[in-house]
């Protein structure tokens, strides 16, 4: 099988450095919480509802306690006290805390042990709900097996969830293994999760719990009708990444876009907030067996794909380290990378092979997510179709795990039904025609591909050393990733972070942490 030379000592060194980088941040994470994290916990307890303005109850409740400066105790602490003082259900406890005349300041009253005891059955129910969704997924997957890898991943993005459901089924019919409902562009910066089924959105459809259900129903139908397990994907990113992770866990999604740093770099969400939120989101993801897709492909859309190839690898090591700290298994880590080199560059195809193969070998247990060309796509759909075919050839040759299919109309509009159909057809051709190519060929030991792979690993190692020296907080400040610079207290959502009190109560997280 074609392999690029790999210095395993250097890879081990990269992992060790990434580990230290993540440890530095983890100590911050372990001493903080956020409004997003606490809302997630309230949702996980089963609390539901919105007011007549569409504001979710979990927001009203958590904002009230954050505003009173006591969120560092953990919202569970107050829910437990409400249960001990007359609330028979957790829903009633949440409503009393949100709308009752006085804010509970947490003074006096029952002991911490009593609070934990009162919460116990509700914690068990919360965890049981996640576990049974996971078991249901595993049972369906055992009954109807997924297709072969690379899994063909397509997006639908009509803005209307009912149209999305039709298009999702159509995509499955045409051969897709994974369907992502792309999210409305505005949602990442909303500090609440919209409620109910939605039919209006620009650039995509809102991620809501009801919308998740509607697509799950459609792809389950497709799974049974076409005899191939169809995976459902959405976005656990932005200011509600943890809440969406929980929603996805209980609605039985299969994959989530989820990245430790994406929100910081590409949505200007505050670093502290993102690090805290990504950790808790990943704790839920780990428990539910969802596969994450990380966002390193985006680095190459803002920075140069040849010069900055190593930043992708560096970030993958860091994303892996953060994911391990949140309890994810390697088999759940769909680390992302992309085919974004200028197609007119001499030997660009060789450079793409080198990077794809290098990442395949370094992350050999990980369901690597391979992203198509976007940056150099133009309105010439006929050329774009050829460009995508070359991308597919790298994907099958280097044994990528999940491949987001390129769309020839990428530079023009959200994919039409026929665009997706033609993309799936062309991909099926390339995958079939070149199925064992990677097993048949070898790369010249000191050739261009081998040398490029060595170079990228060397540069990734050097950047990791540099990031560790600076700390990641500073490194991001200096534009180490994607040429984007962010500061520790800048960006959106910083005010939603709270320091944990010494007696912080979060029994659901305790269970997830094992």
């Amino acid at each position: 099988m074609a392999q690029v030379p790999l210095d395993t000592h250097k890879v081990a060194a990269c992992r060790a450095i990434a580990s230290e980088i993540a440890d530095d941040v983890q100590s911050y994470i372990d001493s903080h919480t956020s409004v997003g994290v606490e809302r997630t916990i309230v949702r996980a307890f089963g609390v539901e509802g919105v007011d007549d303005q569409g504001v979710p109850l979990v927001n009203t409740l958590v904002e009230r306690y954050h505003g009173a400066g006591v969120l560092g105790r953990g919202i569970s602490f107050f829910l437990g006290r409400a249960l001990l003082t007359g609330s028979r259900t957790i829903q009633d406890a949440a409503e009393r805390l949100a709308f009752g005349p006085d804010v509970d300041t947490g003074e006096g009253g029952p002991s911490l042990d009593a609070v934990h005891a009162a919460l116990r059955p509700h914690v068990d129910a919360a965890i049981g709900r996640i576990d049974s969704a996971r078991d249901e997924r595993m049972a369906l997957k055992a009954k109807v097996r997924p297709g072969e890898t690379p899994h063909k991943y397509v997006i639908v993005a009509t803005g209307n969830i009912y149209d999305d459901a039709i298009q999702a089924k159509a995509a499955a019919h045409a051969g897709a293994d994974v369907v992502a409902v792309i999210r409305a562009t505005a949602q990442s910066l909303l500090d609440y999760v919209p409620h109910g089924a939605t039919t209006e959105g620009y650039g995509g459809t809102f991620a809501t719990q009801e919308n998740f259900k509607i697509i799950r129903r459609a792809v389950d139908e497709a799974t049974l009708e076409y005899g191939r397990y169809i995976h459902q994907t959405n976005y656990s990113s932005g200011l509600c990444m943890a809440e969406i992770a929980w929603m996805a866990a209980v609605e039985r999604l299969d994959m989530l876009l989820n990245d430790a740093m994406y929100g910081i770099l590409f949505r200007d969400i505050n670093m502290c907030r993102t690090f805290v939120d990504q950790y808790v989101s990943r704790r839920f993801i780990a428990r539910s067996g969802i596969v994450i897709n990380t966002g390193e492909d985006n680095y190459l859309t803002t920075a140069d794909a040849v010069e900055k190839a190593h930043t992708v690898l560096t970030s993958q090591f860091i994303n892996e380290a953060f994911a391990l700290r949140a309890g994810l298994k390697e088999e759940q880590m769909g680390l992302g990378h992309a085919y974004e080199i200028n197609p007119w560059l001499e030997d660009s195809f060789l450079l793409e092979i080198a990077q794809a193969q290098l990442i395949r070998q370094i992350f050999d247990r990980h369901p690597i997510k391979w992203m198509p060309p976007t940056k150099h796509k133009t309105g010439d759909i006929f050329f774009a179709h050829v460009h995508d075919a070359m991308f597919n050839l790298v994907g099958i040759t280097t044994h990528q795990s999940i491949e987001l299919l390129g769309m020839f109309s990428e530079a023009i509009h959200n994919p039409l039904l026929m665009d997706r159909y033609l993309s799936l057809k062309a991909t099926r051709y390339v995958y079939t025609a070149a199925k064992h190519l990677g097993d048949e060929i070898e790369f010249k030991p000191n050739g261009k591909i081998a040398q490029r792979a060595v170079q990228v690993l060397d540069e990734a190692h050097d950047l990791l050393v540099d990031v560790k020296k600076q700390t990641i907080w500073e490194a991001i400040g200096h534009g180490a990733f994607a040429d984007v610079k962010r500061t520790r207290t800048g960006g959106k959502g910083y005010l939603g972070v709270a320091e944990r009190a010494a007696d912080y109560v979060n029994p659901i997280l305790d269970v997830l942490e094992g």
Partner: protein
Amino acid sequence: MHPTPPSKPLRAYGDREGDGMVQLSFVLQVPPSARAREAAKRFAEMHGLKEPLVATMELCAEGYSYFVVYGHSKHAIDVAEIEVPEIRTEALSREEIEKRIGLRLGRKIIVVGACTGSDAHTVGIDAILNYKGYAGDKGLESYKGFEAYNLGAQVENEQLVARARALKADAILVSQVITQRNCHKENGAALIAMAKKEGWRDEVVMLFGGPRIDHKLALELGFDAGFGPGTKPGDVASFLVERLCGAPAQVEPG
């Protein structure tokens, strides 16, 4: 290429002049069948294609057929009759841009740009403003003569205006990438309306850019210029220099 447009009506050029050959692909909500093929043929005829050939008919989703049709378009177009506003600026060299700003303006041109509304795609505004630039052409940030502020994506018109006014910007650049159901036009038009209402529209050069934007659309919405796909930072820089650093001041005799 013709230096001046030919004055005769043009038909689509396939293999021979005047054959009108056009290819068309589309989906109809009907499974493949002889009737579906005939439906595709008639559909093409309604678009003015003579002797349409349904080259492909495939099931692309349950109940939907994908068609590729070739036909001779009967339509002809007289290019000479068409009036299109074009940006007349010639792309100036980097040296010329720096020189003109230095000599004629004597200070930096302040540019503030953003991708506005809910649109989260910074690729366009980054390509024009950031040092890195696009396709080997470095962005406005790289010029000594420009002071460029990139506010990024998902910026509300109010924020953009507040920042631009505070910085005493000479020019505002608005990028719109997402174009579903014309939201790109609405955002742009709202900004112009705000500028007019607040009375500073004529004090600032306002530019509009994005994959679905052209100069004509930008002018219709009230911008000074529009920049479509493939625009390089140097094109925008040249336009601003032409607009803001006109001819050298004439020395009055006597």
